[in-house]
């Protein structure tokens, strides 16, 4: 509880800092004027451009980190991340088809991306479901094969795209929070909260399953059901995140491991702390991405990797020395 409270406090502080930083700098009085009702440039930039983007970064970061933690438990593989099962490739294919078929229709890319992600989730699930239950290793193999197949289709389609759509899809593939206006943020928040809660409810069972599926069965855990619900929650989190913001790398892999190194492997703590830490990392990365080279925006996915990898290596070395 104390840990979560501290993290939440840090996160709020970060959001506050992020509100002040950007291509157009503001003073404290600009911000207070904007908050207390003066309609003007500051209020437009703060409340219509910056705040929605920060909110989206919070929820996308949280959902990617939680999805990564879930997939690492479900697939019993430390290298698992939200994209390992091809969900983001499915979303990318959906977005590309939307760009090719309906380049001038607004909001349709996110819908196609969501549909692609969910369709991939369903197909991979069917492929991974053998002998009446979800097998971790066949699920992982099915996901990896689907991901490489979908990537190949994406590469074929890319050769047929014009340069504008090619650049659009490249930005999308690197992760892009700059076009949040087409995303229904309320729906994203609702989906992330619901799927996050579903995942958290599985936490005690996931803890038991860490010792092995047989041991969990012996303790009375309905392993098949827990696996299904975890898969459902993690896939939904991933699908919503990629549909809203493209495939932002590294957070889903790195943040759960970071949190594990600090707080241990109890999923009841791991899931909420991952969510908070994922949100914080993405808000920080996006704030840097939109401000250090302004007016040019850097791809946020690259910033997360540059920030995250050294931090991760530092924590890993420190914990192995201890």
């Amino acid at each position, binding site marked *: 509880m104390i840990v979560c409270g501290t993290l939440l406090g840090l996160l709020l502080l970060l959001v506050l800092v992020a509100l002040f930083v950007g291509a157009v700098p503001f003073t404290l009085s600009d911000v207070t004027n904007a908050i207390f009702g003066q309609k003007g440039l500051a209020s437009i*930039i703060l409340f219509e451009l910056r705040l929605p983007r920060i909110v989206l970064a919070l929820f996308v970061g949280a959902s990617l980190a939680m999805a990564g933690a879930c997939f690492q438990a479900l697939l019993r593989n430390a290298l698992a991340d939200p994209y390992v099962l091809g969900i983001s490739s499915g979303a990318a294919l959906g977005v590309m088809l939307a760009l090719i078929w309906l380049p001038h229709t607004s909001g349709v890319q996110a819908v196609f991306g969501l549909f692609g992600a969910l369709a991939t989730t369903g197909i991979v699930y069917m492929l991974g479901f053998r002998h009446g239950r979800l097998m971790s290793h066949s699920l992982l193999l099915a996901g990896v094969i689907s991901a490489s197949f979908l990537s190949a289709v994406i590469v074929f389609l890319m050769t047929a795209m014009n340069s504008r759509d090619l650049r659009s899809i490249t930005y999308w593939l690197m992760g892009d929070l700059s076009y949040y206006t087409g995303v229904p943020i309320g729906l994203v928040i609702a989906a992330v909260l619901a799927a996050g809660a579903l995942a958290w409810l599985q936490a005690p069972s996931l803890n038991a399953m860490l010792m092995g599926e047989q041991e969990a069965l012996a303790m009375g855990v309905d392993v098949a059901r827990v696996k299904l619900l975890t898969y459902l929650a993690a896939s939904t989190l991933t699908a919503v995140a990629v549909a809203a913001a493209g495939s932002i790398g590294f957070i889903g892999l790195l943040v759960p491991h970071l949190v594990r190194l600090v707080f241990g492997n109890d999923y009841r703590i791991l899931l909420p702390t991952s969510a908070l830490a994922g949100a914080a990392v993405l808000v920080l990365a996006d704030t840097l991405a939109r401000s250090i080279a302004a*007016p040019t925006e850097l791809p946020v996915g690259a910033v997360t990797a540059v920030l995250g990898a050294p931090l991760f290596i530092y924590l890993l070395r420190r914990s192995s020395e201890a």
Partner: protein
Amino acid sequence: MTLKRCIALGLLLLAANASAANLANAANVLTDHFGRRVSIPDHPKRIISLAPSLTETLFALGVGDRVVGVTDYCDYPAEASSRPKIGGMINPNLERLAALHPDLVLITKEGNRRDTLNAIEHLNIPIFAIETARLEDISRMFRDVGRAIGKAAAGASMAAALDQRVARVHSAVAGQPARRVLMVVWLQPMVTVGHGTFLSDMLDRAGAVSIADTESQPWPKLSVEEIVRSDPDYIVVTRSPGFAPTRDDLLKLPGWRELTAVKQDRIVNLPDAAQRPGPRIGDMVETLARALHSSAFAEGKP
């Protein structure tokens, strides 16, 4: 009490009327090339251009002093480079754009994203979309940008001048055999011009046809085998910053040594203006026609 209320109501109505009248006077409602109805202030004073071709058009219409923001790629005329930059065409910085207080933003259908248009529309900034897919769209752009910025006459005369010039070039090459051209937009991969783009229209008016004109794609990628098989009469290279291959560079490519056009040095270089559907396109059509059909323009013909 009731009297006070009546006076207050009257004042309120007056104010409302006045502001409505102001709005009606101040705004023109024009239809952009997406078919959107856009309300634009009369003679906009703070214009942002989201494409180099639009920036060139604004300066050519004589309102360069009203341009307050351009993209990173807007480098012509030289004065345009000194305007505040709002980022690239695909990822303009919306905060920077809003901070420049534009009263009109111009955007293209081809080079920018629809998402960008939606985001700017969402900020209640008038945004007008322009299509420049074909050569005839360019004169339409001159007319419609002219209307949007309160320079309708200048826009119309620019459009008429371009149409006349292109027609003059086209009639000068009318009796000539059409040159089969490989137009090099990019070398690796080899991107050329297909059917239905302003570049294929430009070739047509200059008495030429792309060897990839049968392709259904606007920007087909051609294999070397296909290029060698069709053995184009001329190679036209549209240069851009960082892309200026010389004849020696072309000779080094596998198979290109065998092309008749390379052997006989029938290589035409065009500046990057050729890739911009803007005010310099008339020059490009004429330059290309003169290079491909020098005899048609010889002995003092127009």
